[in-house]
């Protein structure tokens, strides 16, 4: 339900933006912006294109010179702007869009490297997130920063692959896709809530936000997808082997990532620090990491028969 509200808010924003830009067009008598200031060599080509919209100009201008329709257009554009501002303001109260944009600032190189680390985290040496004046650097510039693009795509792909797996066993029906989606979503929400609760109980001072936790919980879907596909293509043995590999990989990945965020400085570097609080933190890190393989197995075993 959160997703649909966010999506309809986004679509409304997009529609208003489209309407606004199309209304702003006829101000200069041309329907399109003239971007032909490239050079003398291109102007011959572009002059033809300019003649086109301008031929459409005069008949359009007779429509626009009517003061009533002009007034209506200006009023409509101001309404659209007002509506868009209101939607922006209200939507920002529930879903921090500017913060979300940070998590989707990825590029292909980052996605490739991150997938490589998820599959094989044993060679990666430096796990620290680099900061830029107290704010974390965008994922485009730092491989260790969490993003939401991979988890979202992996989640959707997991639902599709689950539908595929059910189809090969003749158990598929379109409602099952919705059931799978809501079930996996609920497990994700419960896992994030459990981690938040345990972080509160152990009073860890970290800069892990909720969205970071959602991102970390979403990384296991990559392994689940590859496990299901291997099981579909090559049988149960391949499924078990690939799940074993990815459970180990996600375990190491989570421990190495969370160690830097949850534990104190000294303990993160590997020195043994005594005290119940550090022990609690270590147990917390281990249990969060150990819960990932459990979830991976739980959400996929019923798909491979």
């Amino acid at each position, binding site marked *: 339900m959160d997703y649909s509200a966010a999506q309809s808010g986004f679509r409304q924003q997009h529609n208003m933006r489209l309407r606004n830009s199309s209304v702003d067009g006829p101000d200069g008598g041309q329907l399109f912006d003239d971007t032909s200031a490239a050079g003398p060599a291109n102007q011959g080509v572009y002059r033809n294109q300019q003649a086109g919209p301008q031929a459409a100009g005069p008949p359009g201008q007779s429509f626009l010179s009517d003061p009533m329709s002009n007034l209506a257009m200006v009023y409509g554009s101001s309404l659209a702007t007002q509506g868009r501002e209101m939607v922006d303001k209200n939507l920002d109260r529930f879903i921090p869009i500017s913060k979300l944009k940070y998590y989707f600032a990825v590029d292909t190189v980052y996605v490739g490297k991150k997938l490589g680390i998820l599959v094989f985290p044993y060679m990666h040496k430096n796990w620290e997130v680099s900061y830029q004046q107290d704010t974390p650097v965008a994922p485009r510039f730092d491989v260790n920063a969490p993003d939401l693009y991979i988890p979202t795509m992996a989640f959707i792909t997991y639902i599709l692959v689950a539908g595929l797996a059910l189809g090969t066993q003749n158990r598929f029906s379109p409602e099952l896709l919705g059931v799978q989606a*809501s079930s996996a*979503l609920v497990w994700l929400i419960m896992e994030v809530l459990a981690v938040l609760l345990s972080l509160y109980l152990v*009073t860890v001072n970290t800069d892990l936000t909720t969205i970071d936790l959602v991102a970390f919980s979403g990384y296991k879907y990559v392994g689940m997808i590859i496990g299901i596909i291997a099981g579909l293509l090559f049988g149960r043995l391949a499924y078990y082997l690939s799940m074993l590999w990815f459970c180990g990989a996600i375990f190491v990945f989570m421990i190495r990532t969370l160690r830097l965020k949850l534990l104190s400085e000294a303990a993160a570097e590997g020195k043994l620090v005594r005290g119940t609080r550090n022990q609690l933190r270590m147990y917390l890190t281990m249990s969060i990491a150990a819960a990932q393989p459990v979830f991976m197995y739980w959400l996929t075993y019923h798909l491979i028969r």
Partner: protein
Amino acid sequence: MAFTLYTLIQTAILCINAIAVLHEERFLSKMGWGADQGVGGFGDDPGVKAQILNLIRSVRTVMRGGVVVNSGGYRVLQLLGERICDNASWCI
């Protein structure tokens, strides 16, 4: 296991209700979990037990206004949910 969002909401309401009905005098103090027994150290780390007691106390304070569940409210919610889940073939 087919979990739906509706069962999640149900679970959350039932859990909060379970915490809200813990009685202070009769039960929590007897077990050494009273509201005044947790705030011991004002040092840097409150400890897990103090955090749990804080959590219980805050849930009870918030739910003091409306114990929706123990009235007929929960039954109404359940009937409503069943009706929604029956009419639609999906149940998100």
